[in-house]
């Protein structure tokens, strides 16, 4: 490809890109876009949370631990680890 053609094309592209980016930025800042897209995302998330809740309920009714139960247990173990490390640090500082 002739390099001059490439350079010319690039110039044109970058002009188009700068103008497009400016336009998109105006658009994505607009309440007309932000309002409906925010509401849609929230609605999708609420449906997902509700679905998770129902699944956990069904699982729990079978007497089985839910995903949330497992997450809480693992988190508690991590918290315990952190507290043991706190105590170790205190003992070290007392020994100094």
């Amino acid at each position, binding site marked *: 490809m002739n390099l001059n053609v*490439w350079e010319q094309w690039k110039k044109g592209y970058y002009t188009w*890109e700068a103008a497009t980016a400016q336009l*998109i930025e105006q658009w994505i800042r607009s309440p007309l876009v932000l*309002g409906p897209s925010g509401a849609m995302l*929230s609605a999708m998330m609420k449906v997902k949370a509700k679905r998770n809740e129902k699944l956990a309920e069904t699982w729990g009714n079978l007497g089985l631990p839910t995903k949330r139960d497992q997450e809480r247990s693992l*988190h508690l173990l991590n918290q315990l680890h*952190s507290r043991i490390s706190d105590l170790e*640090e205190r003992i070290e500082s007392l020994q100094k």
Partner: protein
Amino acid sequence: MVKRVLNLFKRVGKKPAVGLTPADVVYRENKWRLLRYRPSNPMHPRLDSPILLVPSLINRHYVLDLMPGKSLVEYLLALGYEVLIIDWGTPTAEDRFLTFDDVCDKALGRAVRKAASYGKSGKVHLLGYCLGGTLTTIYTAVRPQYVASMVALAAPIDFHDDGVLAVWMQNPKFNVDAIVNGYGNVPWQLMQSAFQMMRPTLNLSKAIGVLDKAWDDPFLDGFFALETWGNDNVSFPGECFRRYIKELYQQNQLVKGEFRLSGRPARLADIQCPVLAVTFQHDNIVPHVSAGALVPRVGSADKQQWDLPGGHVGAVVSRKASEGLWPALAEWWRQRDEVARAQ
């Protein structure tokens, strides 16, 4: 042009080697680790306080050690400085319960104390990058005893800036509770697509830029390393995200002096150690107005702001940074260390 395309094709499928500077894991808790880089110049005089690098929670730590020749870590080690870094790791489902206090006070606090034990002064020079800078600022305001100095590198402080992210987060229809309740940890894919939406044409521009310089192997090495990092993101712990968005992005509590860490007030005016804020004029992720809000508000007598040209990432890892920003940072630390030693 054909040569350029062939040169690009040679690299398809090859994973760039990133974060190569040798380091030892000196502490590990839950997913995060504290890495201590092995000294490359033990003969050189060291600082009395080690440097602790705190990256953002949502990006991998190796941006500050991208690849040989493009590594702030490597540069500092060559000067004989002791360097440690936090690798936040990858949160898993149970980390949805991790709170802002768990991250900023417990984890960062432990990392600071461990890192401080590697120096003579019992303190560290903290450098926080992006959200890491917000964490170090809040931590230093509340627990200054182990902090010799603080550098906030493109760190958001005033969240009511004119940036796109601030506009989105303050959108009344943006419901952070729904996102955290639905997802648990906020997935990196959601955050990455939000960043891409800020300039959807960026990937096409990158492709053209890379084709234009495809004859330049060192450029391609750097480009692919940075792209590897840019696409290697981590999810945000849910409860931590909830508070970050509500109290910082939406209520702007940090600049108002209302933010609390583990129940203690985090007032910027309480920061007394030497402070340096580095802001970038073309940063569209953390506008320089937001990052520049730190210096006028801290109580330190020794405080500076460097407002540099460049963007959020490029200005930190570019060749230009290795000739300008990095030596300036190293000198800034050396001077603060000397002053502290003399006192």
